[in-house]
């Protein structure tokens, strides 16, 4: 489903629309909630609050307006609200070190994390698997080929294609001026 179709389906408030939007964006919402809250349980709360608030506010999503920035605003607000509540609440926070940083990340950092996650989720499953193994697990192409039981040439072509796509989706963040 393209972005317009997704927004239309969501705007109707139907369960199918919510499901489709969740499948497209829940990873990105979870990523920025984790970035703000540093806690999987609280981040899950933030995802739940985000999608419920978005569903309740779906009437404010105007036709033709891109959905991702609209949802980002709702998600960021949900995470920051939980962050503030945790900071003032009685529940113990993460075991603290002397040098614990207590400020939430900047708006730019959260926006960057959001866009990177969306770009990763736009890759095909095969491309994503290779990019994950390379960057997250730190594996070489040869190791990935061994792990996935595919020829190294296949890994190289998937990697090449995936990074071209990532560069096209994320180029504006890198501000590369060759």
């Amino acid at each position: 489903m393209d972005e317009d179709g997704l927004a239309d389906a969501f705007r109707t408030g139907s369960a199918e629309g919510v499901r489709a939007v969740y499948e497209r964006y829940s990873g990105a919402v979870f990523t920025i909630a984790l970035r703000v809250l540093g806690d999987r349980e609280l981040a899950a709360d933030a995802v739940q609050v985000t999608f419920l608030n978005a569903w309740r506010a779906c009437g404010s999503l105007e036709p033709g307006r891109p959905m991702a920035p609209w949802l980002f605003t709702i998600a960021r607000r949900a995470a920051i609200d939980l962050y503030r509540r945790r900071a003032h609440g009685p529940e113990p926070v993460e075991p603290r070190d002397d040098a614990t940083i207590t400020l939430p990340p900047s708006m730019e950092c959260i926006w960057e994390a959001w866009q990177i996650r969306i770009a990763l989720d736009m890759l095909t499953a095969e491309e994503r698997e290779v990019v994950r193994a390379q960057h997250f697990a730190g594996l070489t192409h040869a190791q990935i080929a061994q792990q996935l039981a595919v020829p190294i040439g296949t890994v190289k072509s998937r990697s090449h294609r995936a990074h071209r796509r990532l560069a096209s989706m994320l180029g504006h963040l890198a501000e590369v001026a060759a």
Partner: protein
Amino acid sequence: MTSQEWLADYLEQGRPGEGPDAPDLASADSARRLRGLLADPDGWAEPPVGLLAQITATIDSERAGPAAGRDDSRRQIRMRRTVRAGAVALLAAAAVVISLVVTRGPATSDVVLAGTRLAPGASATAQLHTTPSGLAIELDVSGLPPSPPGSYYQAWMKGPRGLVTIGTFHLRGGPGTVELWSAVSLADYPAITVTREPEDGNPASSGQVVLTNRP
């Protein structure tokens, strides 16, 4: 080579291009930062299974009546928090037992470390051996993922006099035993923690504790 092709190559290979097509330093810095973010664990994390079902159930309930739906949503979040609070209480109780063993134990001790919310599936046992050179610590770690490139784990001992680092490691060869060394004693520095650290040249703790023997 276009700037987009340069970026794709850099993201894939991690080597900045040279010659007339190479971008300026600021652009190369941006690309380096972007590549680092591709290794960020938060960027690959998946929300818990079953969350969509909870959301759609709340929506269905709210369709039936707004007040009932909001109550359901709050109840589900409260339930998750109750379970979480129970887990924290268990961890605290375990830590009390551990600290009693540690403070009253012999010079050679075993200390159990539990994963925090940043690494809930992780655990470790530290075997401490007194040697003429200091405290030799064998940290047997399980359930902790390898640190992504650009980051590492750092172990610490902490007490009333402050914080002392006892070593760094990455686990990229798989789980196993890490050898650490300390010049300070467990009696004076009873808290042992492991933090996740970015490779940013900053020697201070990031505060991102993944393993600890304290609640």
